[in-house]
């Protein structure tokens, strides 16, 4: 008879899906630039907005994007979360910040870490700059940027940022 203390109460049922991920033409180009330490987005001919990482088409109009725009590695935290639960097999230890970052000159956010700071100091509108890995380690990867580090600058009002970008991109609409 089974001892109640040793009764089976659960079992491990991991689900593992193995993929070969094809990056597509736009992301392949983007990652080749990343390997050289450059962040290159694409401008939509319909909206004038700069999309980074580029997808090869404008998310609003569906029109193909071909014009490339090289961007710097500074940007603004648009939104963020503090993660308190460790990710299995991930070297980053909680609590850490995952943020939606909009690079200067871009009109779309991407997700990256914000680190090397006091987590409590990070706000919506915090200005950040990329901290890169050693050049020898650069690969076809967004991970060439280790994380973004807050700049010693005043936070930005993101509603004003959005308004000024909308005004700016209007100049580039030609479709």
């Amino acid at each position, binding site marked *: 008879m089974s001892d109640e203390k040793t009764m089976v*109460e659960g079992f491990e049922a991991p689900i593992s899906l193995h993929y070969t991920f094809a990056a597509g033409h736009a992301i392949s180009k983007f990652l080749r630039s990343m390997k050289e330490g450059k962040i290159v987005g694409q401008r939509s001919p319909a909206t004038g907005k700069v999309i980074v990482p580029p997808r090869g088409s404008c998310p609003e109009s569906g029109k193909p994007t071909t014009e490339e725009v090289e961007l710097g590695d500074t940007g603004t935290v648009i939104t963020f979360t503090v993660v308190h639960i460790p990710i*299995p097999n991930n070297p980053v230890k909680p609590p850490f910040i995952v943020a939606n970052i909009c690079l200067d000159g871009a009109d779309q956010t991407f997700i990256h870490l914000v680190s090397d700071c006091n987590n409590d100091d990070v706000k919506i509108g915090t200005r950040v700059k990329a901290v890169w890995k050693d050049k020898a380690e650069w690969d076809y990867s967004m991970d060439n940027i280790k994380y973004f580090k807050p700049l010693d600058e005043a936070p930005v009002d993101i509603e004003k940022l959005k308004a000024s970008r909308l005004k700016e991109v209007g100049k580039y609409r030609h479709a």
Partner: protein
Amino acid sequence: MSREDDVLRAEFDLEFTYTRSTGPVIGRFYTDLRDGKLCGIKASDGRVLCPPQEYDPVTAEDLSEFVSLPDTGVVTVWNWVKQPRAKHPLQKAFAWALIKIDGADTPMLHAVDAGSESAMKPGMKVKVRWAKERKGAITDIACFEPA
């Protein structure tokens, strides 16, 4: 060089590390497997269900009357697998079969290591091949083999 060749590709594993809770009925079944035993559960119409189910298939009442069963049974139907996949229980040709454990009235799905497809027969007697290391999971039954 075609445009296709410009596309970067990478191997990528997406994994969900689930642990599923068993509840009292499947928990008991797995506990018995870990101890090298099989059990079923008695339904309202007197049938013995193996693997045991939590609820009666006719009345939907909770079930709790466990019945000890031997580790032998009979194949009802099967499907021969010529080329096993990486996660299959056997890494050679085998059968997925519905096996009615002796003393049970419902069949369970498991693998049969019969050696060849021609060895598979309806009504063939089979016996559990227990896993070397048992930990309270369906994989404690490595497979069934002809008895």
